[in-house]
């Protein structure tokens, strides 16, 4: 039982293909409300208004990359403690540790399975608030 309900997810991802499949997987399978941002800049602009419970953040993006975006988001008072999960292809254990140092609660490997993405997110959430 999680003490907090997960319902609003902000996904920051530049690639349209991944936006489409992940957005659908989270909405249709998980029943979450999802806001997709195509860049770190866009995310910083609309984060406060959307007020996500959780942020899914792509590591490699043109312009502001994932870690830079995270830093900027943390400067927004409302986003100071919002849990963030990084999405990346590079998931060596030491890299996971590095992303966690940056403030991510976990890392989801790309490519992911659309059928189980919501479950993965839910279980990370449950562990974080468990």
């Amino acid at each position, binding site marked *: *039982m*999680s003490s907090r*309900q*997960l*319902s609003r997810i902000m996904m920051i991802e530049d*690639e349209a*293909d*991944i936006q*489409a*499949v*992940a957005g*659908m*997987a989270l909405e*249709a*399978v*998980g*029943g*979450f409300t999802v806001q997709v941002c195509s860049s770190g800049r866009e995310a910083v602009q609309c984060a406060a208004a959307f007020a996500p419970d959780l942020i899914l953040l792509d590591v*490699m993006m*043109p312009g502001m990359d994932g870690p830079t975006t995270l830093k900027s988001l943390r400067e927004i008072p409302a986003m100071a403690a919002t849990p963030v999960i990084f999405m990346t*292809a590079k*998931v060596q254990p030491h890299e996971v540790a590095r992303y966690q140092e940056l403030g991510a609660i976990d890392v989801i*490997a*790309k*490519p*992911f*399975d*659309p*059928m*189980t993405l*919501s*479950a*993965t997110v*839910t*279980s990370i959430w*449950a*562990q974080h608030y*468990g």
Partner: protein
Amino acid sequence: MADAANFAEQLNLLRQSYRAALPAKLIEIEKTWQGLQTAWNAEALDSLHRQVHNLSGSGAAYGFTRVSEAARPLEILIQSIGEAQSAATAPQQEKFAVLFATLQQAASEPDSVSPDSAPARNAATPDNGVAQANLTKLEVDGAGVQTPAAQMPAVPANDNQTSNALIFLISDDTVLAHELELQVSYFSYRVHTFTQLSDLEGAASETPPAAILVDMLTTGDEPIDMERVAQLKQGILATVPLVFISSHEDISHRLQAVRAGGDAYFTKPLDTGELIDKLDSLTASHTPEPYHILIVEDDSTLARYYTLNLQAAGMIASAITDPLQVLHALSEFRPDLILMDVYMPACNGLELSTVIRQQEDFVSIPIVFLSAETDLSKQMAAMSRGGDDFLTKPIKPAHLVASVASRAHRSRVLRSLMVRDSLTGLFNHTATKEQLDIALARSRRNEAQVTFAMIDIDKFKSVNDTHGHAVGDRVIKSLSRLLQQRLRKTDIVGRYGGEEFAAVLVDTDGPAALSVLEEIRAHFAQIRHQGEAEPFSVTFSCGVATSPPWLEANELADAADKALYEAKRTGRNRIVTSEPLLEVTS
């Protein structure tokens, strides 16, 4: 269910468009690369990196695992070229050409849907990940119906699949042929008779029959060419059940039949009842009713997630997020198993299971707890309160499905011993009444009609007295089979007493029920049962009552019983509809 089907469909559409866009993406990558060969450009390399990176990150999610796998080393190569900040060396160019060719190849190879398609990595299983995982898992205990998610809906359409199955008979015994054609037709089989093996062969290669009956002594005194039959059985008829009919009881003829690949052997005079029993079991395409699973979980996201996973494995899952609704859900949904969260706000799972167990009707339904609790002593405490199993969250979909399916399977087997009649496999008296209650409750809610029919075999005592109990039992079985075959899968057929049957026809008004039952009555009267000395036929009487106007099960059953009595009194072999005091117009 609709959600799952919808999701699978949407996913499929997305995959199709991804697949369509792939070639253009590869061309773009090739162009960028070639541009880089003529003039070094950090920005272009960056863009190349991103294009390849995106393929590696998206491929498997769209069912192109190999694209992800092939793009990854290409991405690493591009990174190393970028770090050197100079044009690609000759070995790098060569490597690029090889890796790019692999990528092109991979783009034409979407993941197969076979269960052995290798998972990409980590949790990323391409395509029907969930369903496939369940499939492989479930083969172990062989329980349940599994349908890959892409093939929703999960409920198999199995209504009357075997109706009017085609049977080929080879015989020149016209009396036998005629008799068989007539007798088996009452049980939804069609017989096509051939006198020449070659004709049968031709017809079978066009439409394979459900079974083949071979009269071993055919064309006057010339025996049938058993070698030819054996060849056919090894060739085009390999999957078709083969039944031999012979006038010889001896072992050598039986042996011949076995050697030719026979699945059964009958001697003349033919007992059609036994033959049909055999045909039923040989041609049965067994599609078990999917398991009904009730999920009690206050977290609606998790509830949805479990529902979806169980549905993807072919089960019918229904979730309630308010634990206080559980009793209502139990009597409406009639689950084979309850999957329950332990910690819920309004009342916890332990209390709830005690409440459920205190009701006699629900004592035997397995309750499986789901909880993040890993403390063994707390788990044990949960079991002592009426739980049957304890699953720890988070749980992998495959594990969830496997534990639920095997428990539901066992529960159903146990339940069937309790509710089924051993001779006919029909619902017993108590279970029939219970089913009638359920059907009435549903019909009230849907404002539909339910018709209840009581059927009693006429003068059954004299059948037993004249032909013995074994023959009597066969008569009972033949009526049971006829009712099951002629009524819909959604109707309920029970053996109410010795020679008494009951049928609950859901969503059926009086006139519709009457026409179906009348057809069954006429057919049953024409069936010739094999007696001690000679064949005989039997009839039944039937009383019918429809709800509304009767609302309670007892009233409805009483009304049908009175009508049955009336049918007996006025001469038997007939159906009488109960006349309510109030005239109802339909």
